[in-house]
């Protein structure tokens, strides 16, 4: 179901964690709340779930006014950052909790739990206690527990934050597929732009208690409306007050037009891509990104002098208004 957040503000003491945040998430979408630590992502998620009451503003879920509804009647599945397992219950009873609170028949509960155990690939571990599970397994148990009651929306707070890199990559992929299967409106919080780009259909970029920009990963990457978004989403070169993506830096065979010389300081091989650290004649450093093949052809080596073209850099005015890509100021 759709989620509509309208002008929500929230203070903790004198600290304003959310400043009039408005957000609409369409039914069935997979959305990431992306931003640096402390930008208010978790607070916004908790306001939607009813775990935190907003000072002003309103929350609607599936068209229904929910601002003052307690968490237990919102029909929201919430997965906590550290999973919040019920430590004194088995995996089975953790997953069954929401159904048993609703006084469902035992047969129905058993059936649903079996179905979920399979969905999250924990079949066989139903009798274990949380202390006997790995981080990734706990994560999936928490997800199954939240899904058991067929929530209208699923909210995940830093779902991959506490896991190591391998498990993380696997779970991302899996969350994406799971969403394709069950189509529940999902919002997850992350501070990792790569994670947001890879998993989400829509990204909401937050900064200092405000929403900076909302869009698809591609829109945000190609048309960031502020320097904050541009530098948060993907690598960036800053030249004066203009910004340039490393892959926009072209290495050309001949000087001419808008080109300059650059000294190769470092060559870093990142699998398919090669990142080249360059020093410009005025001493500024930028990085360029080229394919492996191109790097090979150019015989890139440290100390080499190249000719580069810096095509169009973006300039953001202090008010963060987007400005049409300007020609390079060099």
């Amino acid at each position, binding site marked *: 179901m759709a989620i509509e957040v309208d002008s929500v503000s929230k203070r903790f003491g004198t600290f304003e964690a959310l400043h009039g945040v408005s957000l609409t998430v369409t039914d069935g979408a997979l959305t990431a709340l992306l931003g640096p630590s402390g930008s208010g992502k978790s607070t916004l998620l908790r306001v939607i*779930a*009813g*775990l935190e009451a907003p000072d002003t503003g309103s929350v609607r879920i599936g068209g229904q006014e929910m601002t003052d509804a*307690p*968490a*237990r*009647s*919102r029909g*929201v*599945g*919430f997965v*906590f*950052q*550290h999973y*919040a*397992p*019920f*430590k*004194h219950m088995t995996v089975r009873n953790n997953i069954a*909790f*929401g159904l048993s*609170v*609703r006084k469902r028949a035992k047969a129905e509960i058993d059936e649903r739990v079996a179905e979920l155990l399979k969905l999250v690939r924990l079949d066989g571990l139903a009798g274990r*206690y*949380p*202390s*006997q599970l790995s981080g990734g397994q706990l994560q999936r148990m*928490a997800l199954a*527990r*939240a899904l*058991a*009651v067929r929530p209208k929306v699923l909210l995940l707070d830093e779902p991959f934050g506490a896991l190591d890199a391998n498990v993380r990559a696997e779970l991302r992929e899996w969350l994406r597929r799971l969403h394709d299967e069950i189509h529940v409106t999902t919002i997850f919080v992350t501070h990792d732009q790569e994670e947001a780009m890879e998993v989400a259909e829509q990204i909401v970029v937050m900064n200092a208690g405000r929403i900076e920009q909302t869009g698809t990963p591609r829109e945000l990457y190609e048309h960031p409306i502020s320097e904050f978004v541009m530098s948060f989403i993907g690598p960036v070169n800053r030249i004066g007050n203009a910004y340039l993506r490393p892959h926009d830096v072209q290495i050309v065979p001949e000087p001419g037009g808008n080109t300059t010389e650059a000294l190769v300081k470092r060559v870093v091989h990142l699998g398919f891509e090669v990142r080249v650290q360059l020093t410009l004649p005025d001493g500024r450093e930028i990085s360029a990104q080229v394919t492996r093949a191109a790097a090979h052809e150019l015989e890139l080596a440290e100390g080499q002098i190249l000719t580069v073209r810096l095509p169009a850099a973006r300039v953001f005015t202090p008010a963060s208004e987007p400005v049409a890509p300007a020609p390079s100021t060099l």
Partner: protein
Amino acid sequence: MLGIYLSALVLLPIAALTAKATSGGPGVLWREITNPEALAAIKLTLVVAVVVVALNAVFGTLIAWVLVRDEFPGKRLVNALIDLPFALPTIVAGLVLLSLYGHGSPVGVNVAFTRASVALALLFVTLPFVVRSVQPVLHELELSMEEAAASLGAGPFTVVRRIVLPSLTPAIVSGVALSFARAVGEFGSLVLITGNLPFKTEAGSVYVFAQIQNENLPAAAAVSFALLVAALVVLGALTFVSRWSSKHVR
């Protein structure tokens, strides 16, 4: 090293007491324990101890809850006062209780020389145990567990019954065990307020003391031994319950 230390402090006294109690043979031991006055004292001690620890389990947990979860003026003071029964010599505690709840009570409650006075004195001296064992656990209890339960549809009572209490059980049980042991052994606070009336308000420990004064050492040793065994059985059982309930709660 530690072995010697513990032996000197715990094992040797227990062994000496056991030796003393059984030196006249099982017949004497049994006769002394089943002496009607002795039996009444032992029974009183155990029954009141059970009532007291049951009350402690409930009120100690509630007090711990309020101290951890609620904010109110004077909270720090109340928190500090919880330890008062530990700090006060028990004979002084007995004196205070007698002047408050004895003859001519300023609050109009006179329980001196009744069985209620036994319970009152024991409640006072065992107050801190459950509070102090539950408090840190409650403090560490992740709020997110309760939030998770709420978001799954559980109302406040269900959250307490199915999430909070099971998580606190090991701590409550261990507080109860300490309270029980203390209640069985308590002497100082009882002597003044209970009047030590045989068959009525005379607790096991007080009976032992009276027998020692009468130089009836076999009787004193026998009843001490019976109290020791009762305390060990209850501690053993509670340890088992606590182990079992905390097996998976980390």
